[in-house]
């Protein structure tokens, strides 16, 4: 196996797949150590987390939420919520990417730039979709939400390169869409660090630069007149689970078409030394016919969080606008 292909399978998920695919080619001890690892959820009731000096269950560390599991379950799977390890192995051989098709417009060789999902380190997870339950799909959108999103798209159409303000927030280095809440994996650098102090939990996302500061002192949300890119988060503990309630979103950061009335409830539960089960429920009576819940598993990330400093070299936005002007000139 050459070095390049070796890197492709070095994630936990890749290791699991490799072992199950190659089977007897690997030492029996290695198979046992990986395959006997209990599924994260099985530990939930037995794992006793360490405590921070002020008594909080300890979630601290550098974690990755990388995942190749699609948000919505492929329709052909029906109500099947979990793959068997054997099925997961097949997907591994086929380069399973969930709903993350290779970037259609990327001019990169994905693996060379670390963008191939199989180069990421995944926590073990056999779910068929991040959305839990028999349906596994985002609930239908209300007519008012369909109209709202349609109007927004129609208004923006043809103007997306007018100027820097028309470019997406992530391209402008303001917020990274996947940093949430809900906090989801994206293409690369799916790393975050959790730090806890008396009265607060802080979560640093590697992409862009943001730190979520979540107060735990029971203070109310800010006034409804104040709207924030990432909403206003408040946390509390329910046993070993950190529950974070977020409201006060803007109407400029919709998540799957949500409105500024989006209400996100996240639940962080450390189920083992190497596992945090992250679950979130989205409720928006202006958007969906019912709330929906999804879950992913975070595992430890090696190395640390590296500085991203998005603005430092953000030539892309200027180059894109320059390209648009050149195209206009050509077509005139």
């Amino acid at each position, binding site marked *: 196996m050459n070095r390049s292909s070796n890197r492709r399978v070095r994630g936990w998920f890749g290791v699991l797949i490799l072992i199950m695919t190659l089977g007897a080619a690997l030492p029996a001890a290695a198979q046992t150590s990986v395959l006997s690892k209990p599924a994260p959820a099985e530990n939930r009731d037995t794992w006793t987390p360490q405590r921070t000096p002020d008594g909080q269950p300890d979630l601290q560390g550098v974690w990755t939420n990388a995942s190749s599991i699609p948000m919505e379950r492929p329709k052909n799977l029906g109500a099947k919520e979990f793959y068997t390890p054997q099925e997961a192995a097949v997907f591994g051989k086929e380069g399973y990417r969930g709903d993350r098709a290779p970037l259609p417009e990327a001019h990169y060789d994905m693996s060379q730039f670390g963008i191939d999902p199989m180069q990421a380190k995944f926590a073990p997870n056999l779910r068929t979709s991040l959305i839990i339950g028999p349906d596994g799909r985002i609930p239908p959108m209300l007519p008012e939400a369909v109209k709202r999103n349609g109007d927004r798209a129609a208004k923006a159409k043809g103007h997306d390169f007018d100027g820097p303000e028309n470019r997406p927030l*992530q391209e402008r280095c303001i917020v990274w869409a996947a940093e949430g809440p809900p906090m989801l994996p994206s293409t690369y650098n799916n790393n975050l660090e959790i730090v806890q102090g008396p009265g607060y939990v802080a979560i640093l996302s590697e992409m862009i630069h943001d730190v979520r500061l979540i107060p735990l002192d029971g203070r109310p949300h800010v006034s409804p007149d104040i709207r924030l890119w990432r909403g206003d988060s408040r946390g509390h503990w329910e046993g070993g689970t950190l529950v974070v309630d977020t409201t006060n979103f803007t109407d*400029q950061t*919709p998540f799957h*078409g949500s409105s500024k009335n989006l209400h996100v409830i996240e639940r962080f539960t450390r189920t083992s030394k190497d596992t945090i089960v992250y679950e979130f429920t989205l409720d928006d009576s202006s958007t969906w016919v019912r709330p929906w819940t999804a879950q992913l598993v975070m595992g430890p990330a090696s190395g640390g969080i590296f500085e991203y400093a998005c603005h430092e070299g953000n030539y892309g936005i200027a180059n894109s606008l320059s390209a648009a002007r050149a195209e206009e000139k050509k077509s005139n």
Partner: protein
Amino acid sequence: MKMKLGAALAFLSIAAAAPAFAHHSFAAEFDDKKPIKLRGKVTKLEFINPHSWIHIDVKNPDGTVTNWAVEGGSPNALFRLGFTRDALPIGTEILVDGYQSKDGSNRAVGKDLTFTDGRRLFLGGSAPGAQGDAPEEKK
């Protein structure tokens, strides 16, 4: 404006529905109808986020030299692959297989970047001793 509806709406309308977005729209910046092959010596490496840039001096058929800027991946992702900013000394000769910018300037995105002996630039141990994001030993 005759621009196609591009990545601008990715955030506004579908957000993480297709979470495989990159930092910016490649198609907005580079032209897939302008494939380009460059061979030149590194004059500068900008190991900066959100994308690295490698500057190379390319000798033209008439003997003149043109400096090209080539976009690479996110330094953070590259670092985890074992590539550091010290991994590509000035003067190193590299080959770039990529696409030129839409505005016709001497910029390109590097689809494949290789050393002259065929080794891929960002994979294959360019940085001796650097550690990628290999799984930790289970304790």
